């Protein structure tokens, strides 16, 4: 059995290494595409935004927002603020020179202090939806906090029988500003987590092409049936299980080599750092196994080479789109971010991103490794069951 598996794997690898298109898919295309996509998305994926602020109020509530929120430690390095008047702010938004504008009307502080309704306007450019969403979240969080502290203002008013002093109002504004940033910002994948393009699209493209790279293993079963060599293999004393194991071994070897080469290439050429090597290897192995399992299962549903190619392409592209292989996941709506976790490549990618952004080792990627490995084992077992009809008369 082992001898058969090794012989078949050796033969399959020899065939693949002779096939230029296979080499391109395994080793060149992931690197080239990662480079192109990385360049298109800029050098890194740290959140950056430029906001215009039109502060016609100049009071403590407005200052609390501009100095306490926009210039806070969490956002200081990520947000560039241009102080302009309201007209210019709208013009900058219209021209797309800023991502959003905050319009703080005259009398804002006084209205808050008096417990009257007040409006903080956010104008989004639409060119950078993430930055616009963050601007809206910042404003909503601040006004929500003002509403809460407004009760304190009202209470102070009731107790003392007169409006709070300017100093008291300023303290309330500072309290509002000092509260936690919106959970969406702090806990989301964007805020504070810097992912270099090479660190994201390196693994991302490697995983995407991995599916194509390893799909040859299952497809070659159909090819060997078509060209009659499967019958000939089975006419020797080769056990069918050994033949299938050899094909899986060849796919695993080539898939792992493809990922390792991508890791090495992005490290050497772009200075990427995928994280702890042991954890990276664990993720690579589990990702390769899941890719082999899924493609094998899909291909065993096909009856011809052409069908197999069609089915596997459809599944691979769907998984890639859902899993975030083509676009940074954090830039997608929450629903799609959750949908990514329905795919093994989404989990693998999450593992690689966690490793880069959060550091750590095997513990950091334990869940992604467990999920991708489970997917690989389950789909692989189903594929093996279905493949029996292909190798047993």
């Amino acid at each position, binding site marked *: 059995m082992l001898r058969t598996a090794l012989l078949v794997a050796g033969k399959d690898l020899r*065939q693949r290494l002779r096939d230029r298109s296979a080499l391109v898919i395994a080793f060149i295309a992931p690197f080239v595409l990662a480079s192109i996509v990385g360049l298109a998305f800029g050098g890194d994926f740290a959140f950056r935004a430029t906001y215009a602020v039109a502060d016609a109020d100049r009071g403590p509530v407005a200052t609390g927002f501009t100095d306490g929120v926009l210039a806070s430690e969490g956002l200081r390095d990520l947000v560039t603020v241009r102080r302009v008047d309201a007209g210019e702010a709208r013009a900058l938004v219209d021209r797309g020179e800023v991502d959003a504008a905050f319009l703080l009307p005259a009398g804002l502080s006084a209205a808050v202090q008096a417990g009257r309704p007040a409006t903080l306007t956010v104008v989004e450019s639409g060119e950078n939806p993430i930055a616009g969403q963050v601007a809206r979240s910042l404003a909503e969080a601040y006004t929500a906090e003002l509403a809460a502290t407004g009760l304190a203002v009202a209470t102070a008013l009731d107790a003392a029988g007169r409006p709070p002093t300017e100093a008291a109002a300023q303290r309330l504004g500072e309290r509002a500003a000092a509260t936690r940033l919106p959970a969406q910002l702090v806990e989301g994948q964007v805020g504070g987590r810097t992912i270099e393009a090479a660190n994201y699209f390196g693994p991302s493209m490697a995983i995407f092409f991995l599916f194509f790279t390893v799909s040859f293993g299952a497809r070659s079963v159909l090819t060997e049936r078509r060209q*009659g*060599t499967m*019958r*000939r*293999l089975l*006419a*020797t004393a080769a056990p069918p299980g050994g033949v299938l194991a050899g094909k899986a071994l060849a796919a695993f070897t080539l898939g792992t080599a493809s990922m390792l080469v991508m890791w090495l290439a992005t490290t050497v050429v772009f200075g990427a750092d995928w994280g702890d090597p042991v954890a990276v290897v664990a993720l690579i192995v589990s990702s390769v196994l899941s890719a082999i399992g899924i493609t094998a299962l899909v291909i065993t549903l096909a009856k011809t080479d052409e069908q197999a190619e069609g089915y596997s392409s459809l599944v691979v592209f769907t998984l890639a789109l859902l899993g975030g292989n083509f676009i940074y996941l954090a830039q997608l709506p929450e629903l799609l971010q959750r949908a990514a976790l329905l795919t093994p490549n989404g989990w693998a990618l999450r593992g690689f991103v966690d490793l880069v952004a959060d550091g750590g080792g095997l513990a950091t990627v334990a869940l992604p490794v467990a999920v991708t490995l489970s997917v690989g084992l389950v789909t692989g077992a189903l594929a093996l069951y279905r493949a029996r009809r292909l190798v047993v*008369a």
Partner: protein
Amino acid sequence: MDDGPVLWCKDLRKRFKERLAVDGVGFEVAPGETYGLLGPNGAGKTTTISMICGLLRRDGGEVTVAGASLDRDPGLVKAAIGYVPQDVALYPDLSGLENLRFWGRMYGLTGRELNERVDATLEVVGLTERSGDKVSDYSGGMQRRLNIAAGLLHRPRLLVLDEPTAGVDPQSRNAILGNVEALGGEGVAVLYTTHYMEEAERLCDRVGIIDQGRLVAEGTRRELVATVGERDRIELAATGDLAALAGVAARLEGVDEAGVVAGGVHLVARDGRRLLPRLLEAAEHAGAEVTSVELVEPDLEAVFLHLTGKALRD
């Protein structure tokens, strides 16, 4: 078991849904003997050898190869068989040498023995010079020869060839038949399926005629031809008094039937070759002038026709 048949099979049966593909086929092949399974396409030849080679599950029957039972020792049986499939079953993107090395290893050959066998086999099939070329660059005939070589590498006790000359040019066909003829002399038992009567007559020591999944007759060529009476057909194209010619011919010893047909006389006779001089002399006496003679001796085609009522290529 060395003195016994290399292949012994009995009562092989296989059904595909409603169709009974093989129905009680059984025969044996001795060492050095070439046994032909002759029948039209769809007769059950490939199904029969697929069961013998362990490639197809049997519904019934027994197979023993080189003393090993296919049921009890399938590994031994497969190791004793060299299987050459009907279509070229090789890796087109590998060279001839790489293909043979791979198939040799699959049959358990290693190291020096593997190298020697590969070299010798390439020599036998005349592909030594082209062994480094990709199989996809070979001509159809060369691919066929390499296809046979892959089945010979491990020196099998039984070589099973499934229509190895289908779609091959005459030159390559001749080379393949020459290779197979040589194998019999080396003591290899050969099971050869074909629907070409000429190949069966040239190569096979014994022939089994198979039709609709049943072995309808079996024996040497002589034995099979005897079943149709060993009578020759003679067609004389002639002018003059054809009725007188038919009458004279009918009275000759060895002639069983004689009758006038359009443009000549038709005869059925025993040992037609020896009869011809006397026939021509009789024609002269009868006042007829013979313009051409066609002698049709009985062959396996005629046997098949006699047994099944249809031609081999129907």
